[in-house]
């Protein structure tokens, strides 16, 4: 199942609607990494509210996605991880290290706004 990617000003928003196969995940990753350059986006939000399982492949793909997008000069936030999913993930040792997370879409947008403002005034090369 394809994940729609919406452009919202400087940000891209990908909302996962249903459980994804490994292949779908890779497609999503590739699409976002490509689109972020084309659209000259400053941030990417991946909304996983609809997922009630997150296995090791999914979390590794999301982590890779975030790191790739950072290399392309933008920020990534994963939003909407369910409480049960979060706890199951850390029990399996999947903690999305180095990836920003937020409660929901609204929070994710607020976080990206904040980050973008920081980088506008600050030194871009100093970004983590």
């Amino acid at each position: 199942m394809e994940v729609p990617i919406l452009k919202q000003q400087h940000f891209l928003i990908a909302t996962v609607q249903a459980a994804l196969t490994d292949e779908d995940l890779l497609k999503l990753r590739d699409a976002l990494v490509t689109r972020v350059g084309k659209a000259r986006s400053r941030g990417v939000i991946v909304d996983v509210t609809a997922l009630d399982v997150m296995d090791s492949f999914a979390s590794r793909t999301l982590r890779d996605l975030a790191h790739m997008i950072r290399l392309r000069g933008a920020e990534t936030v994963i939003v909407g991880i369910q409480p049960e999913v979060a706890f199951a993930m850390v029990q399996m040792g999947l903690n999305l290290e180095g990836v920003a997370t937020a409660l929901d879409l609204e929070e994710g947008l607020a976080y990206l706004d904040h980050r973008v403002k920081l980088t506008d005034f600050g030194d871009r090369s100093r970004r983590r």
Partner: protein
Amino acid sequence: MSEEEIFAEATSVYDNYVEALETGTFEALQSYSRNLSERIIPRGVETHEVVGIVLLLRDVLARSLFAKYQEDFEKLNRILDAYEPAANRIANTVAVGFVQERERIIREQQEAIRELSTPVLQVRERLLILPIIGAIDPQRARQLTEQLLRGIRANRAKVVVIDITGVAALDSNVANHLVQTVEASRLLGAIVIVTGLSPEIAQTLVTIGVDLSKMNTVGDLQGGIEEAERLLGYQVGPLGESGQRT
């Protein structure tokens, strides 16, 4: 216990005993022992006392049988054949009734403790505190985590202060669970600050080598709340004389 009470109790014990011996049915005895346990457990009667008394009664009755039938060895033998299993069963019934009653009380208390165990409280917009008091076992730790994660969702919390001043000891399992809770909260977009680690707990954690590098810790609850307010962008200070902020 007053003298009348003792007499009444002794009479009913004797009556029940004799009834069980005569009829061979134990229902009345069972409900009597349950009823008795209900009354004596709050007085702090211990298992060994109850079992001791029942066994004593059994032996006293056996002695009286010996005394009565010592002339006729055959008859004594037959009587003992009938008496011993019944007497043992009586002892068994009373002891089991007592222990079951005690277990029921313990279960009820555990339930009660679990229910009032740990509130997740909102102290400011987007700031939750979770004061933990008493011992944490794996089951309680799990329940805490679930409550906290749900609380973060429901209150849209950004910062959570977990205060463990009231926790006397942590083992490595629970410590790791705490670390997992911190990570799971982060996945929901909340920062966790842990406060009130006692010197003993700090020592244990370092000695057993739990990785606490991902945990924000602040000395006490006040410090934790101040740190949380700073993270949320609050500035809290005393008002000047005119009621204006200084």
